[in-house]
């Protein structure tokens, strides 16, 4: 399965790029994260604290146990600070 991965705010800065396309067999967001962590030190730093990690699956907020079947886009970011 091919996924578009997006990063925002300081996760984007740590990963060093705003998006990347990955080929993965991950079943859930959590599985995907453990694969991404291995990609670079930047990735590892971005995902160092899963407690504050937020994610969206196909542009809907989701949690780490969200399944990835049929999904095209997954985004990772810190807690939001809008308003």
């Amino acid at each position: 399965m091919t996924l578009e991965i997006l990063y925002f705010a300081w996760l984007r800065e740590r990963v060093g790029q705003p998006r990347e396309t990955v080929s993965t067999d991950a079943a859930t967001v959590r599985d995907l994260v453990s694969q991404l962590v291995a990609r670079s030190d930047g990735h590892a730093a971005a995902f160092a604290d899963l407690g504050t990690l937020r994610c969206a699956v196909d542009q809907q907020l989701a949690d780490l146990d969200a399944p990835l079947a049929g999904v095209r886009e997954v985004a990772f970011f810190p807690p939001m600070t809008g308003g």
Partner: protein
Amino acid sequence: MSARVQAEPFDLAAELSGFGTGAGAVVTFTGLVRDDTGLMAALQIEHYPGMTERALSDYGAEAARRFQLSDWRIIHRHGRIEVGAPIMMVATAARHRRAAFEGADYLMDWLKSRAPFWKQEIARDGSATWVQAKNSDEDALLRW
């Protein structure tokens, strides 16, 4: 009933022209860039194009359903916003004041913690610091 994400400033007066016709109560909230330290030049706001518009529309529709709003509007800016300038606004219209107040209050709580925006404080010396999410913003959602 509309949500917009834009880099440009907005004009509250123009936005309210014709807003909430027939309603008894209109509430607006405007958020402005505040400089508490005297060292800040601007905010830089990043967002998630595509998702942002969808999230704002979803929260607006949910507020309308929940508080029986006859009209609502959300505008949120992104990019660089100077100290003193408006960041965002919500407006709600309803028959009675309680619903208009609660609808606006509810929307603000959701925007703070669930809309995909991230703020960076840009100091006068050019340094940038990501704004940390507040626990109080997360807790505020528990009220609803």
